[in-house]
């Protein structure tokens, strides 16, 4: 006899055609229905999809939005990234804990509400922010927190927490979100008004090769972080042997402090989808996937609706534009809470329904990507640029920016500035100008490119936003006077530690060692060798990690060592006897003293000398 759960899980599996490459969607559907993917559910899934049970379990353990333990009917996920910490995260957290009577990570005894923390949810311009199930709540204060809890207890419906809608499509009936766009500049290229259908019509009137040539003439480089030339990527994909090519739009936007793709998806979805369709035409693909991060689930119904409208209008589907140039359609793949899934090979793994593990390269996705198919992965903003290039020509695009970095860049600016939000600036704009735009002139430091980027000090504020100088996928975090930059570094390392997929030792262990090292520095217990050790370790992590996460994760330490050496040097000191200042015999024997009821003569003799040494050192 099958249980209720078994019947329901079987139904979910059937709905997705028992397709093992849709395992992530199956698990997610089970999670939504049962608030967990229990052992029993995993058994059923494994049997129904005919895959090893461990595949299911490792998937569930991988994604933050899946869990084996039962969650509350409402899950509150507080963003605790550095920007939120600067905007009162601790008070918000304490207010939630107090009002709910639980600690972070716990569920109320009635099983109704779970309180968790999470990394950046893409709302850094309206921090402190949280996800309440799929609903985004922004700009909280402790009074609002108390109301939120009271209201939830009454109706248990997160949607009712939204009292006013943000402008533009945030108030669309399928979105109904309090999220604000915060578009702070006039649109030059990607944020300019949409001329729907025009770019696609022009693209289809020339050959795919000519489309690629146009994109190459525009010298378009990828906006997702790495800056790879888009035309070249398409050329490789087009030239790959297999015919079943595919386009993937990377809307994972996980780099803390980045939220520009959120705005593009909200206000310019047609531009994004047109870009995907043009990419499909250029490389010879029949279909595409939009990989949308789980944190942006609130946009899913809206985006599905846009897709449906495009199908109706002949801009998508069987015969795009009725020009006999073939078929192209797009599906949305939801992520499930994992930063590493923004890395293109991990993204492909996730689209294939498995854990978001990065893959070895070569083979590159252009040859062997999604399910072995030649795949072009492009960022949301890159695809918007594509649409503009086809619409107005490469020359119009090229008039902005520099020789090596053509066009404009969307910046997501947050932190200590009076006008956080999304800015479109031509490449080549200096950081100083950027700080002027966002009213953050008194910054003592700016993190350019998110945790994986670099910390820039005032002496480099004349640097330019472009691929060869200050490169960024969009994240710009501003730190004003009085901010403790070491604790920022510490938070970034904690982020990487948590988000590492764990495959390679330099990344899995290196980030822990760096974090512990920074803790020693912060406690004033580091030795000069520790700093040398950071450099050596950072170098090894960069050289020996498999994917970009591990390769960039030592950057918070390495770039602050370079631009803010004083942060470290004022806190390290040499011990005159060659002892490690991080080792405290008193602490190390404390437990044994307690267990044995004896006191250590050595430790206490030494505790004194150690404090003297420390005083001399600091």
């Amino acid at each position, binding site marked *: 006899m099958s249980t209720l759960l078994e019947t329901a899980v079987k139904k979910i599996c059937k709905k997705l055609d028992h397709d093992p490459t849709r395992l992530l969607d199956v698990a997610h559907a089970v999670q939504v229905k049962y608030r967990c993917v229990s052992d029993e559910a995993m058994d059923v899934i494994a049997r129904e999809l005919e895959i090893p049970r461990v595949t299911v379990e490792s998937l569930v353990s991988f994604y933050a939005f899946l869990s084996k333990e039962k969650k509350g009917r409402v899950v509150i996920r507080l963003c605790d990234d550095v920007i939120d910490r600067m905007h009162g995260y601790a008070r918000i957290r304490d207010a939630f804990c107090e009002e709910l009577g639980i600690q972070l990570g716990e569920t109320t005894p009635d099983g109704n509400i779970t309180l968790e923390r999470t990394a950046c949810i893409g709302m850094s311009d309206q921090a402190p922010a949280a996800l309440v199930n799929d609903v985004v709540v922004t700009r909280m204060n402790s009074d609002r927190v108390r109301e939120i809890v009271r209201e939830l207890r009454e109706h248990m419906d997160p949607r009712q927490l939204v009292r006013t809608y943000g402008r533009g499509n945030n108030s669309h009936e399928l979105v109904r979100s309090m999220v604000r766009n915060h578009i702070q500049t006039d649109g030059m290229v990607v944020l300019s008004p949409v001329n729907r259908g025009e770019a696609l019509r022009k693209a289809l009137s020339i050959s795919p090769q000519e489309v690629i040539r146009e994109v190459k003439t525009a010298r378009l480089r990828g906006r997702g972080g790495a800056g790879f030339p888009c035309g070249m990527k398409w050329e490789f994909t087009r030239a790959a042997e297999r015919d079943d090519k595919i386009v993937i739009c990377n809307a994972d936007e996980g780099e803390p402090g980045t939220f520009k793709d959120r705005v593009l998806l909200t206000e310019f979805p047609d531009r994004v989808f047109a870009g995907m369709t043009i990419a499909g035409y250029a490389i010879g693909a029949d279909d595409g996937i939009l990989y949308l991060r789980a944190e942006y689930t609130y946009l899913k119904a809206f985006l599905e609706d846009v897709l449906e409208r495009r199908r109706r209008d002949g801009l998508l589907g069987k015969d795009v534009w009725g020009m006999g140039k073939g078929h192209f359609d797009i599906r949305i793949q939801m992520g499930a809470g994992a930063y590493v899934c923004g890395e293109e090979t991990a993204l492909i793994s996730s689209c294939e329904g498995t854990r978001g593990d990065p893959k070895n390269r070569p083979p590159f996705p252009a040859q062997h990507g999604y399910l072995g198919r030649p795949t072009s992965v492009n960022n949301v903003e890159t695809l918007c640029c594509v649409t503009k290039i086809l619409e107005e020509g490469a020359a119009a695009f090229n008039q902005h920016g520099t020789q090596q970095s053509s066009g404009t860049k969307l910046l997501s600016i947050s932190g200590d500035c009076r006008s956080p939000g999304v800015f479109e600036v031509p490449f080549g704009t200096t950081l100083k100008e950027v700080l002027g735009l966002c009213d953050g002139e008194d910054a003592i430091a700016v993190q350019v490119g998110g945790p994986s980027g670099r910390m820039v000090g005032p002496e480099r504020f004349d640097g330019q936003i472009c691929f060869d100088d200050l490169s960024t996928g969009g994240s710009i975090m501003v730190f004003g006077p009085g901010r403790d930059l070491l604790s920022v570094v510490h938070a970034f390392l904690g982020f990487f530690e948590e988000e590492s997929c764990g495959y390679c030792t330099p990344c899995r262990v290196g980030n822990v060692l760096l974090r512990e090292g920074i803790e020693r520095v912060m406690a004033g217990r580091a*030795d000069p*060798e520790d700093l040398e050790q950071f450099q050596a370790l950072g170098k090894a992590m960069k050289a020996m990690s498999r994917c970009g996460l591990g390769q960039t994760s030592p950057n918070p330490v390495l770039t602050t060592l370079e631009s803010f050496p004083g942060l470290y040097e004022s806190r390290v000191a040499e*011990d005159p*006897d*060659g*002892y*490690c200042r*991080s*080792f405290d*015999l008193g*602490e*190390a*024997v*404390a*437990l*044994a*003293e307690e*267990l*044995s*009821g*004896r006191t*250590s003569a*050595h*430790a206490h003799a030494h505790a004194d000398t150690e404090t003297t040494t420390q005083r001399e050192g600091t």
Partner: protein
Amino acid sequence: MAKPRIATTSLCGCFGCHMSLLDIDERILQLAEIVDFDRSPLDDIKHISRRCAVGLIEGGCANEENVEVLREFRRNCDVLVSVGDCATTGGLPALRNMVPLKECLEEAYVHGPSVHNPSGEVPNDEEIPLLLDQVYPAHEVVKIDYHLPGCPPSADTLWEALNALLGGKPLDLPYALIKYD
């Protein structure tokens, strides 16, 4: 000119590294010609008597006495070498780092399957050094200048390393001497 002095010690190790040092066989006579041994289990000198050129450390730090000894070595040796995996990583003894100290002691002295201890007491004599919460590799307690991996490093590795150190030559160990699989 006075010969350079060497001191050696076994902290939380099995003496295997010292056995390996003795494995240099008749070369020990050569060694004795170029160095004098100070504090070492080989000569049973209890404390370092004069400044030493080289200190060899076997084993990590598991108790307060290990820390005291290691610190004495650091204060009195120009160059300190972690010899063997226990000194460099904590080694086998560090397996206990995964288990809380109390449970470790109870397993060893009270509940272990081969333990006969009707009193149920954990030994607790003044003479027994207090254990540390964890086993620490030597370089987490004092500054260490060189690490020689191996369990134990082979006699040839030790010999080559000592010669290089004492002769002021760069240490260039052939692959065969540092390959362990």
